[in-house]
């Protein structure tokens, strides 16, 4: 099978990998780059557990053709601690916003995308921002509170 070399920026670091034709970004991140933070949930674009940011936009990595990110910037939760909205992670812990934790990386990426564009969102805007992410523990209220709290604290610095 023909493999294609691609280069992209992963959490601020340049990466060069070979991808198979038709291989999705989630697979490349997990098996090619070794970043296990984006989760494989439904594989159909329904659950949002695989959400990453591509050039600052939220994308479902399971439905993104890996070749599409050549030359682009891909951010995942693995790099969140070194980015401005690191307080989101602390806020999720403080507000018990992770139960089983499977949806958490996707929720954090959806939240970071929101706060980058809108540092002071309303509750409705938070609900809209995570509308593409399913939490089967149904812990949505804690997640919404965590995101709002991170925004109110400025979302910029670690609180703990």
């Amino acid at each position, binding site marked *: 099978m023909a493999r294609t070399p691609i280069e992209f920026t992963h959490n601020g670091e340049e990466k060069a990998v070979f991808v198979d034709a038709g291989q999705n970004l989630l697979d490349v991140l997990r098996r090619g780059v070794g970043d296990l933070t984006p989760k494989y949930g439904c594989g159909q*674009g329904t659950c949002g557990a695989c959400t990453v940011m591509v050039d600052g936009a939220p994308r479902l990595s399971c439905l993104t053709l890996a070749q599409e990110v050549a030359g682009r910037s891909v951010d995942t939760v693995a790099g969140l601690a070194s980015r401005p909205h690191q307080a989101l992670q602390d806020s999720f812990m403080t507000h018990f916003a992770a139960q089983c934790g499977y949806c958490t990386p996707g929720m954090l990426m959806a939240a970071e*995308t929101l706060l980058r564009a809108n540092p002071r969102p309303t509750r409705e805007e938070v609900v809209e921002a995570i509308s593409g992410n399913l939490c089967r523990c149904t812990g949505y209220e804690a997640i919404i509170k965590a995101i709002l709290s991170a925004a109110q604290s400025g979302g910029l610095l670690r609180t703990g």
Partner: protein
Amino acid sequence: MPLTVETYPSVAEAGRALAAAPTSRFFGGGTILMRAVNDADPSFDTLIRSTDPALTAIRSQADGVSLGAGVTMAMILAHRDAAFLAPVARVVGGPQVRAAATVAGNLFAARPYGDFAAALMALGATAEMSDGRRQPVDDLVRGSAKGLVATITVPRPRDGLRFHKVSRVKPKGVSVMSIAAVVPGAGGRVAGARIVFNGMGPQPQRALAAERALEGEPLGPQSIMRAAAAAADGFTPQDDALATAWYRSAVAGVHLRRLLEGPR
């Protein structure tokens, strides 16, 4: 057979490659096709892409807007000249889907998707194909026209676009049905109304009986009631996990009445 990905710098070249290979598919935003790729769907063996910047261009025109086929819902929401389409783009999927889902892809999205296609049909949009042909988007939605869409020209409605999506889950939920309507008037009477339902059949479809009930009449309680009574005429909705065919037929008129009674 292993999958092959071919990338072309121009949409014209991609269109020719697509026409020459019956087992190829054009890869746009990926929200639908990538599912099939992940499932190793054997019905195609080649993905055709194009990096043509025209595919993602939004151009304002005197009486409307021209959308590259690969313009996403998120791009529409971020562009002033496409603001009249924003109420429709906003209810497609969640933020991740809107960042990838394209205007042309929605024309070919199987039920229950196709809310944006319904709006384009109601607005009388036309598609310019990669070989230069022009055709109404209605023909592409119906499947009576083939080819690769390059751009979609959308007239800006003088009388506004009315749009309503019915879904059980808020804010993101697939359509039980959606209705797009443009109801132009002349001398206080309706002239040339276009009403399109999505979710009432295999693909978005004009509600011709409801349109006829309004034609030549003032838009008021009497004509709206007649249009609502005829709303489901000519449709063959199906049962699915969202709603039964009976339910869809029963409520189509209710939602159409509310849409026509409300502000445009």
